[in-house]
């Protein structure tokens, strides 16, 4: 037993010593490597930046030392990729040319065939930064990779490189079963912008349901007027998610001419569609929607009321008037006025030199207090620094508001 115990202690002790040694060696190796990198980088960076700033057609190799080690080649690539994240225009093109000349593009394309998925993902990410057209075809092929993580890097790279050849597989990738991948592809397409609209419209009918939802969202966020027809059609779709997304998209596009369709959607049988329609009408800012939004404040669903209130708040004076006069959902209405700092503005108008403005402010606060939410006004009256504000608010609060008239 003793012998076994000694053996176990020795093994654990050796493991412990090995572990400690591993930490020390790892740290020493890393720090040494970083120190060498820093030294070499200080030498290579000025040469790379000189190349980037130059107007001549001399290749990057002409600026660098004659013999480059593997470390140097890696550092040059790192410097170029770091610069690629920041610069634009001609300098950006020079980076691509340098990376092509340096062999980095070819190296990254070769790495796309690696058995290690992280290596494939890393290379795809780098190819996006390199923006080389040579990479389009291999990246399109990579969109069929079994790993979602790799597919999304390829999609991102294609989104950066752009061009029709790159966009088509991206639109198809909206159908990716991984929701996170689809979200990221949608973001990529949004960044591509107007160039993606035609491909999206052409592919829409062929996409599965979840991809259609993403497509509508992308089209809305690109704010393409060409998508309005499709969005209007989708407001009639049997799928409520598609209807809601279409309403949201129309709001993002912001074309005032779509207000009648959205007003109709305010009466949809599904509350998410009604809520999105209310939000969209607020975004569009068409005053014709005020009566319908006012009606929507009666909705059973909190979100529909909240979005309608917010929409009315954003619809100028008429919208605010509608919010004050609403006989239902008064707390929501007053809360909207308060969150929009409209009540506060009226309180500060009480000290305005303009008598009309003062009178309007008194009328406004008078009507707000009729909603019975007078606590905050009472506090404001007590705390106001100016005597005129305290007096005006005090008067309003003492006299019953229009809504209270006739109450016992």
């Amino acid at each position: 037993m003793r012998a076994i115990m000694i053996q176990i202690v020795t093994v654990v002790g050796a493991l412990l010593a090995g572990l400690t040694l591993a930490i020390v060696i790892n740290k020493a190796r890393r720090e040494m490597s970083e120190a060498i990198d820093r030294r070499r980088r200080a030498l290579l960076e000025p040469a790379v930046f000189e190349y980037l700033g130059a107007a001549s057609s001399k290749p990057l190799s002409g600026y660098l030392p004659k013999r480059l080690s593997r470390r140097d080649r890696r550092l040059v690539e790192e410097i170029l990729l770091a610069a690629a994240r920041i610069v634009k225009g001609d300098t950006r093109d020079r980076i691509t040319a340098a990376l092509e000349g340096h062999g980095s593009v070819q190296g990254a394309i070769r790495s796309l065939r690696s058995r290690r998925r992280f290596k494939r993902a890393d290379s795809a990410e780098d190819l996006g930064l390199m923006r080389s057209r040579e990479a389009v075809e291999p990246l399109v092929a990579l969109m069929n990779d079994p790993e979602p993580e790799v597919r999304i890097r390829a999609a991102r790279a294609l989104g950066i490189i752009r061009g029709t050849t790159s966009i088509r597989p991206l639109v198809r990738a909206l159908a990716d079963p991984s929701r996170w991948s689809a979200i990221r592809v949608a973001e990529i397409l949004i960044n591509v912008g107007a160039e993606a609209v035609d491909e999206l419209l052409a592919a829409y009918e062929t996409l599965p349901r979840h991809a259609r939802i993403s497509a509508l969202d992308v089209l809305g966020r690109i704010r393409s007027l060409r998508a309005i027809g499709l969005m209007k059609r989708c407001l009639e779709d049997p799928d409520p998610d598609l209807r809601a997304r279409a309403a949201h998209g129309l709001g993002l596009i912001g074309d005032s001419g779509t207000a009648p369709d959205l007003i109709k959607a305010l009466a949809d049988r599904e509350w998410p569609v009604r809520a999105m329609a209310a939000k969209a009408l607020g975004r569009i800012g068409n005053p014709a929607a005020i009566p319908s939004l006012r009606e929507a404040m009666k909705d059973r669903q909190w979100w529909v009321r909240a979005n309608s209130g917010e929409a009315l708040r954003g619809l100028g004076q008429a919208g605010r008037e509608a919010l004050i006069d609403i006989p239902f959902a008064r707390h929501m209405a007053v809360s909207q006025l308060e969150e929009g700092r409209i009540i506060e503005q009226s309180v500060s108008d009480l000290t305005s030199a303009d008598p009309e403005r003062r009178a309007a402010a008194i009328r406004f606060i008078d009507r707000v207090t009729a909603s019975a939410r007078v606590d905050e006004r009472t506090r404001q009256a007590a705390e106001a620094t100016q005597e005129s504000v305290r007096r005006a608010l005090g008067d309003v609060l003492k006299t019953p508001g229009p809504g209270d008239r006739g109450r016992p």
Partner: protein
Amino acid sequence: MTWMSILVAIVLAFNRWVIYYFGLLNGVYLLLFLVSFFEVMRFVRRTFFSDYEQILKSEMTWPISIIVPAFNEARTIVETVRSLLAVNYGQFEVVVVNDGSTDSTLERLVETFELKRTDRIYRRTLPTGPVRGIYASLDHPSLIVVDKEWSGKAGALNTGINVSRYPLFCSVDADSIIEENALLRVVKPFMEHPQEMVAAGGIVRIVNGCEVREGRVVRIGLPRKSLPVFQVVEYLRAFLGGRIGWSSLRSLLIISGAFGLYRKSDVIAVGGYDGSSETEDLELVLKLHEHLRRSGRKYRIVFVPDPVCWTEVPSTFRVLARQRNRWHRGLLQSLWRHKRMMLNPDHGVIGMLALPYFLLFETLGPFVEILGYVMVALSYFLGLLNVDFFVLFMILAVFFGVFLSVAAVLLEEISFRRYPGWEHLALLVLAGVLENFGYRQVLALFKVKAFYDFLRRRKAWGRMEREGFRAAPERPGAA
């Protein structure tokens, strides 16, 4: 059979049993460490800077309500709120709940952020204590301060949930600082698995010894006192060596109250935080597991190792004793409340592995350890002690203890490297060795005492006495 022979038989049986227990315990620890090691490596390799960039820019990123319960936090609350308002994240709000503080917590907030009372409307979805007022700031539209009568941390968090607007909420302790990119990192699993994700926790690191400026940790350092340094190693072991492992086994039971992100609808579905629990964070996670398992829904509760929350730890044994007493009582309480999950195959790995682990090792471990020392003395007096074997066993126990601590330091060193200097590394390894001589035994004693208090149903809030963050010296040239 004499009393002496019975005693001898008991001592011998215990000693034999302890060897098996020791082997099993360290085997489980080793296994957890191995799982954690591979998980950390996988995590580091699949972390792409561009993902966070995209999460930051995307309109599809979940908006988050950060809820900060505060009770008598006048000393640190302003810095905490400042750091929260400066987080690198798209859409978020900060909801500070002043839980009936008797110091100037509210006044400091009102004064610093020029708060005004507002009639904000909210749904009282979870039952909470009376709210005295809600304050908003014109300069900081994403800041809401709720002033309420005291009802405890759970009540304050539930109030925050009621007032919050967004579908995810992040609970942050008022004495903690979350790093600038912490939300971007902790929300990533929610972006990757939006249907399944329910909760995610980040790593909690120790701020004692670090320099803080304007609510940011600007220089990372180790505490000067030995007690907090031991806790640094202990936290590294618990988070990097334990929680990562449990998380990858899909049986994470603890998301630290100092920093956790939750899907609001699921938390509301289980009735929110439980005010009667000593450790509302553990209780909430267990309730979520039980509810979601029973509903048959596919879900995830995960630990993400790189969003960092910095928090202050006790620097005296008196405060540490109170803190650990509460933690352990909370653990016992939750294990008791959810006993039907224990060894229940319907609850999968949680029922069959995680909960038995907590019962067998976390709850019984301290007893075995303390009893072990008693038995050694008894064996010696009874002439049963094989000194050679005992010495070897003790060396092995210390080696294993040090091994796990050093392994956690190794994980830190190859992954996140928050403690950059050689002196940090040396001190951490040294603390990993020294904590085995006194610190761990004291912790075991605290836990035994907590068990006794639990049985007597004695309650004591493990109130933390704060020293406040160590301010960084002014920048040269600063006015």
